[in-house]
């Protein structure tokens, strides 16, 4: 496992702003739970649990980018394409909460900020792009791969800009905001490109083997005709 944190720690953003975002995150997640139940009804707990375990496991798989430099997938956009925005946001939040409590990754008081950036902003941006792009691009493995790549890059950068916004509201030190924003955007574009390449290939693989499992494609499919009960001879 990586030994360094990428989640906001305590003391970076001040108390009141952290509290506001904690309330925001709780409200948004409550909404996500309601929508996710529409997708999965009573299957929600086991399925979302397994998808969250998948995200967590994927984050533990390191791949070498250059000799000595390794990275790992964040998995937010991937989850959104595969299981939809509501379940995706729930799974990413669960991963963040567990990382905070069990691995001390990310501050307890910054949990609301981290959930807002990665689980809400990141997935929302990713999913809106996916929904938009799939209207114009072919709805097959290639189209989905391009979509996944673009959505991953944008979602990672948007999540990083969420931090800049929170820092602008409650940053504990005066910094030049364009500088923070630029640095975050640049570094996260690089992260996003790596993320996008892997997410694209992964989604294409799943779309070839089990297209019925890809939430982003399911949206566009007509519901299967209801077969009348009874045996046809």
């Amino acid at each position, binding site marked *: 496992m990586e030994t360094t944190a990428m989640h906001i720690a*305590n*003391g*970076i953003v001040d108390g009141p702003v952290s509290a506001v975002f904690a309330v925001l995150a709780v409200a948004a997640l409550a909404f996500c739970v309601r929508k996710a139940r529409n997708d999965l009804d009573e299957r929600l707990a086991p399925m979302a649990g397994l998808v969250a*375990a998948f995200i967590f496991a994927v984050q533990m*798989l390191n791949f070498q980018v250059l000799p000595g430099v390794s990275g790992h997938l964040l998995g937010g956009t991937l989850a959104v394409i595969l299981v939809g925005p509501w379940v995706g946001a729930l799974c990413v939040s669960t991963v963040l909460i*567990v990382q905070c409590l069990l691995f*001390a990754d990310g501050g307890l008081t910054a949990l609301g900020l981290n959930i807002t950036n990665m689980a809400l902003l990141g997935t929302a941006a990713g999913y809106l792009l996916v929904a938009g792009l799939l209207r114009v691009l072919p709805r097959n493995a290639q189209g989905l791969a391009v979509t996944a790549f673009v959505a991953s890059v944008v979602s990672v950068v948007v999540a990083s800009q969420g931090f800049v916004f929170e820092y602008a509201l409650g940053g504990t030190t005066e910094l030049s905001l364009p500088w923070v924003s630029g640095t975050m955007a640049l570094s996260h574009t690089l992260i996003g490109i790596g993320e996008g390449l892997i997410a694209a*290939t992964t989604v294409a693989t799943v779309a070839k083997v089990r297209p019925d*499992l890809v939430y982003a494609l399911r949206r566009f499919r007509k519901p299967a005709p209801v077969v009348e009960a009874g045996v046809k001879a």
Partner: protein
Amino acid sequence: MGGALFLERVSPVHRLAPEVKIAAVLLFTIIVVITPRTEFWAFGGYALLLAIVAVAARVPALWLAKRATIELPFVLLAIALPFAGQGERVDWLGLSLSLDGIHGAWNIFAKGTLGVVASLLLAATTTMRDLILGLDRLRCPAVFTQIATFMLRYLDVLADDARRMRIARLARGYDPRFLWQVKAFAVSVGALFLRAYERGERVYLAMVSRGYTGRLPRTSENRAPMSQWVTAAALPVATAGIALIAGLG
């Protein structure tokens, strides 16, 4: 699970119910974060409190120090702040440093470290199962505790799945290790998702066939006795005391 931080010890802190520990750590962290950054000695007091808890919990200092390196990226950010900060500047060893930046660096370093050490102490003295149980008893919505339970239960299974796929690939003579070979990595991530999702469906069906209706049965109602709440409250109360004295002084 490989990365979990639980330390098997016999100590009064280990024996406390998980919900009182979670509440104590949360309150402690909140008080630390809202303490004004210039109350330098208050932070010393907080550190002393954590040291007392660590000794009581029999968690070695070296163990804590090693795990606390998780906040290294933020320490690097803190080091950059005196140079990047704005406002009044001071000269130190021929370097022009921002006073606000120095305070900001101290703020991140002190609050970040105290928060990480407090979280580490919680994770070191509470098993994963108990942490989830504690969240449940603190009225955390059942959806979350259930998702988290399933996640932790199957994390090992999925990690093993991933390991087996890697070994199978190595056994066939392919070891992708560079960026341009990323396809093999991504294909196994895709396969891992399929295995995870299909396993989820099987788990769900197995549960339904055993009478699952969307809620897990409660196994134990052993809530923490009042005495444990009082014991655990010692940490946030002492912390608040230090904060108050610092605020008045």
